């Protein structure tokens, strides 16, 4: 069974209409560097892998003071021969903030653009070898034809938070992958904004708060059984999940990470930290796993290792890690990352994407080249 890999949250958002050749395939080159799977003339954000292929969202364009201007595509290539095995699933995504998932030979993603210009979600799917007749299949249940906030991908279903009509509440839904039984189901209703969503085992976890400026109050961590048959539990209060602005996308869903016993999250401030609570909830304050970290932006747990992407003053975005329980001196794994979301694992490697240098200052910020890398775990 192909392993589903959950992508980390968003960096780029497409809002422009620069005249680019949208149908043009990116230029992929191999490298003598054994850690480089391929060098691609796109800004790579979000990565997933399965046994054979590596998948990514790639953007061509630039950031300016007005946001991202350009186009975003969803692509893959074979790990062993990336240069000659490119597949493009979608070439004009409205954004990358909701990621994608690979499951049993299918790739699933959200897009905003179908069936109209209204910002309603739709789920699309393709075979990982390529879309039938070159066109993705739309698989959205009618319950989800609303504006979305956050997404988590499970092993057999997609979990999504959507704004409910007539109020500020948010519905948390389970949508089985096509081919799996059952209709879309409302699991529970959150009374505030869902700032982060994660699935682990039979429980859906989320952070609920207010994504307001200039003073977002601390948020609350919840969980609910995916059956929807149990009353949701409060796991932790005063979760200072993040600041409200990455400077690129102030509204991106933040990330939760899991191991067999704990849920992890990050406090995204300049004096930030990665914290955790037992999956059943914190008796008191959350445990600080590693601190201080300058603006941790995403987190991933792999066995006893904790990985996180964070900001640096001199090297742009960077990937660091430590062994949980021994995080006094974290290891810098890779500087100059291409995005805050480019992080995935398989059994042997950690995959990320880097650039040659830290991004130049705005207003012209053009990641035109990324190296997809695999680093030993």
């Amino acid at each position: 069974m192909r392993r589903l890999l959950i992508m980390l949250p968003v960096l780029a958002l497409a809002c422009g209409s620069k005249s680019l050749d949208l149908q043009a395939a990116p230029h992929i080159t191999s490298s003598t560097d054994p850690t480089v799977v391929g060098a691609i003339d796109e800004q790579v954000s979000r990565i997933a892998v399965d046994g054979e292929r590596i998948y990514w969202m790639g953007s061509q364009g630039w950031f300016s003071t007005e946001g991202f201007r350009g186009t975003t595509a969803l692509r893959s290539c074979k790990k062993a021969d990336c240069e000659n095995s490119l597949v493009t699933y979608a070439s004009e995504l409205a954004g990358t903030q909701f990621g994608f998932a690979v499951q049993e030979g299918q790739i699933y993603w959200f897009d905003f653009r179908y069936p109209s210009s209204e910002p309603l979600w739709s789920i699309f799917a393709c075979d990982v070898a390529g879309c039938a007749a070159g066109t993705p299949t739309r698989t959205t249940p009618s319950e989800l034809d609303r504006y979305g906030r956050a997404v988590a991908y499970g092993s057999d279903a997609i979990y999504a938070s959507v704004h409910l009509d007539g109020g500020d509440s948010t519905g948390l839904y389970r949508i089985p992958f096509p081919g799996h039984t059952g209709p879309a189901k409302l699991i529970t209703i959150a009374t505030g904004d869902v700032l982060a969503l994660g699935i682990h085992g039979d429980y859906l976890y989320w952070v609920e708060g207010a994504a307001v400026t200039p003073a977002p109050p601390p948020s609350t961590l919840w969980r609910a059984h995916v059956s929807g048959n149990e009353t949701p539990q409060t796991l932790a209060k005063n979760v200072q999940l993040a600041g409200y602005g990455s400077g690129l996308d102030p509204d991106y869903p933040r990330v939760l990470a899991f191991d067999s016993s704990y849920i992890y999250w990050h406090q995204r401030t300049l004096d930030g930290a990665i914290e955790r609570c037992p999956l059943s909830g914190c008796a008191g304050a959350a445990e600080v796993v590693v601190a201080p970290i300058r603006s941790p932006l995403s987190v991933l747990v792999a066995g006893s290792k904790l990985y996180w992407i964070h900001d640096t003053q001199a090297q742009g975005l960077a990937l660091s890690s430590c062994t949980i329980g021994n995080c006094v001196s974290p290891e810098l794994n890779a500087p100059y990352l291409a995005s805050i979301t480019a992080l995935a694992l398989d059994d042997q490697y950690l995959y990320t994407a880097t650039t040659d240098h830290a991004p130049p200052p705005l207003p012209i910020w053009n990641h035109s080249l990324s190296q997809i890398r695999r680093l030993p775990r």
Partner: protein
Amino acid sequence: MIAHRSIGRELALLLASSLGLAACSGRVLTLDDTQSPETPSNVDAGPSVEKLPLPDESGSFWVDDTRLYWQTESQWLRSCLHEDCDHTTISYGRALGLVGIGENVIFWSTWGGGGVSSCPKTGCENGALTWVVRDPNGQASAVSGDYYYWSSAFDIFRCPSAGCGEIPEVVARGESPWDLKLAGSRVYWSNIRAAADGVSELSDIRSAPQDGSEGPTTIATISYSYVDFAVDTRNLYWIDQSFQVVSCPLETCQSQSPTPLTSNQPKWGLTVDASGLYWLDRSGGTDVVMHCPLGGCSSEPQALTTGHVLGTWSYGYPYALDSTYLYWQERRGKTGDTLDTRSVRRMRKPTQ
């Protein structure tokens, strides 16, 4: 799709507001070339008002005791000596806005995700500026000495002008200010929180030492949000919901009712220094700088400016103070609809 926000721009502008320095939103303010450069009748009408010409059209201006600072229409940050602007003008760099004027350096917000740079006030040697910090979450900010203070997400930080390094100094944790002010050796800020009814909002005015050596304390709780407040080393001042300026001693503010200092004419842009309280009065349809001694207006507040002070700025106040003078820019022309961006007026501040 979600529009990108220019947080750095807001940061800079909010800071200027917090300092009580003049700032504008960076909107283009142009002279009407078809108009003759008329001077409003009030300008130079009395010996107390001086007109300081600028070599550029300014989008906004700031002052200290020796220099006049302005941002050009093309967003260059420049300064000159008060007394001889034409021959002493220097440029610092392109800026989203001036963040603050320190003792020896100036801080400004740069292009690039909330970046702040610094440079000696006398000019950057060989064009080299210092990258102080980059913080896309930065909000309210202020400058004291040669330290830059700002709020970010749930913390208040500070950095020296030489730069922060990876992790800035923490002044206070778990705070979410929307406004930040400095007085004496302390930082003051306002946190907004929900009132007990769950609908209305309150403002907690909080304070901590500038070096973060002690935890914060609550100075006062005010029954509405986004309070226009000012502070000195003895008292807290704010514009209350009936547009009165009120005050209370810092030590006892939480436990006593504030004292009204002014009438309840509509006002905004409150600033305090040793010479008294200043604010803008819009009751006559234009903004006029008003003044009261610190002890309160014995009769009516004194209108210091009688012309059309620019009154539609998105952020900051359209006047500035140094230790001796009050500065402002005025509209010009018969209809008063064009800002005179090529000069700054000043007059000596009233004595107490």
